[in-house]
């Protein structure tokens, strides 16, 4: 997600190919048949504008989906996503009472952060293209299956993968049991090469800069694989309600480090800044999640949608997510207030900064990425929609997302590096979505 140079656009070729296939299908038909053919298609389109406060990340994401329905249960779905991202992201270092100068990830040049400011790397600029194709169909009376592929590319990241699922219906289709799996093969080509985990960041302007910078790099490319398995049960309760339970496993293997994140090094906790190290995460991660969702329709037609997720992993993180929405429907319109609460505990390898003594103990993993630290987050939103008919809808959604870090290591034990929440990155973002389907 990082770019100091011009962007490459291999994903555009994929988009053009998909569009060409769609056009070829339609162009081959006479007008009347084309109108009939269009009846079999559903289209979805949406644009999300995501803006973080304090000039941090700004992103625009556009999605176009097209589904060809062959019958009520058989469909082929195409989805194209384009997102662009600019702005600044915390680099992992702590604020300091002195100005701080950091080497850019590319090794070309540096940037300076004022005393007291949260260190942000302001060179983020990227464009990502994603394509998905998904086929779903029944398999006899009691079974159905689905299979799909995805490809995505951005300046420093490429992902290709596939998924498959099989469902079995029980109890007159009131119970559905689903087993689904996906595999993603991802390749990272970080700006400036792959940093050596826990190596020192070369000091800008030092006489040995180029030697030091080269010593902090290990090749141009790294990869990772992500395998997911989900076992789910969907149950219709009565005419007004249904619910779902999922148990999921996600196994990440390979290079899981963020190549652009660093850790501040101090001589002692709260002491003098010594320099910066590149972060390093373990090379495998197994996440498990339990997910429940329920939906209920009231007498007047309003709908309550609630879900809860409990997630834990072998990095030492646990998280809770609660999401609730109430869709108030009146005539052709609806208004839907939404609220989401999220809370996570830090992974074992997380520290806001590290001491020289801790580094001397040769840690295997270390990160100061706030996204792996202790924090709570709220999302408050509202969605408004207008339905022209059953298949045609325009909608907009406005949501605010706020992350609040918690104090770290307040137990004062000697092996922690305590930090006040006030010195850790907090974040507020506004999300505006406009979309439609026809």
């Amino acid at each position, binding site marked *: *997600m*990082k770019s100091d140079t011009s962007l490459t656009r291999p994903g555009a070729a994929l988009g053009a190919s998909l569009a060409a296939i769609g056009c070829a299908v339609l162009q081959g038909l006479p007008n009347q048949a084309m109108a009939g053919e269009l009846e079999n298609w559903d289209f*979805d389109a*949406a644009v*999300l504008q995501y803006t973080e406060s304090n000039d941090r990340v700004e992103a625009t994401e556009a*999605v176009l*989906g097209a589904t060809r329905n062959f019958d009520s249960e058989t469909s082929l779905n195409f989805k194209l996503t384009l*997102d662009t991202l600019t702005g600044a992201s915390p680099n992992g270092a702590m604020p300091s009472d002195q100005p701080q100068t950091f080497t850019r990830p590319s090794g070309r040049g540096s940037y300076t952060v004022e005393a007291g400011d949260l260190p942000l790397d302001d060179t*983020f600029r990227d464009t*990502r293209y*994603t394509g998905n194709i998904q086929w779903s169909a029944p398999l006899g009376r009691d079974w159905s299956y689905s299979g799909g592929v995805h490809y995505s590319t*951005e300046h*420093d990241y490429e*992902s290709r*993968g596939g998924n498959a699922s099989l469902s079995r219906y*029980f*109890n*007159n289709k*009131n*119970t559905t*049991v689903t087993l689904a799996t*996906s595999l*993603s093969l*991802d390749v990272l080509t970080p700006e400036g090469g792959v940093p050596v985990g826990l190596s020192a960041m070369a000091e800008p302007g030092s006489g040995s800069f180029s030697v030091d910078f080269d010593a902090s790099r290990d090749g141009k490319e790294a990869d990772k694989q*992500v395998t*997911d398995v989900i*076992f789910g*049960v*969907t*149950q*219709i309760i*009565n*005419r007004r309600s*249904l619910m*779902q339970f999922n*148990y*999921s496993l*996600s196994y990440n293997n390979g290079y899981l480090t963020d190549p*652009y994140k660093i850790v501040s090094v101090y001589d002692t906790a709260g002491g003098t800044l010594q320099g910066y190290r590149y972060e390093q995460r373990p090379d495998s991660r197994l*996440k498990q*999640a*339990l*997910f429940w969702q329920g*939906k209920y*329709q009231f007498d007047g037609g309003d*709908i309550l*949608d609630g*879900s809860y*997720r409990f997630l834990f992993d072998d990095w030492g*993180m646990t998280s809770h*997510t609660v999401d609730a929405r109430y*869709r108030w*429907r009146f005539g052709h319109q609806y208004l839907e207030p939404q609220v989401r609460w999220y809370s*996570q505990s830090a*992974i074992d390898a997380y520290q806001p900064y590290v001491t020289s003594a801790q580094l001397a103990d040769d840690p295997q993993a270390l990160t100061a990425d706030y*996204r*792996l630290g202790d924090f709570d987050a709220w999302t408050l939103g509202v969605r408004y929609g207008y339905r022209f008919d*059953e298949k045609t809808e325009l909608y907009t959604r406005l949501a605010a*997302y706020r992350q609040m870090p918690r104090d770290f290591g307040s137990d004062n034990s000697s092996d922690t590096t305590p930090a006040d929440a006030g010195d850790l990155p907090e974040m507020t973002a506004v999300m505006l*979505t406009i979309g439609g389907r026809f």
Partner: protein
Amino acid sequence: MKSLTVLTLAFTVLLAGCSSLGVKPWERDLLAQQDMELISDPIEAALDDHVYFSKEGSSGGRGFGGGGCGCN
């Protein structure tokens, strides 16, 4: 692996218990509405997942946790 066995067992028991729940085919009018699908808007769900995947340490649960981007 042990937790997986326990969960599989729990789901099997749940499945048996579920046979008394549900509706007749002619009672599916409300459930057939698009608004009553568990993911009533897949596009909104995907946009949300992308934001939270990029900003939080957790992902997946409802669907695949997946890879797919070097998000910041």
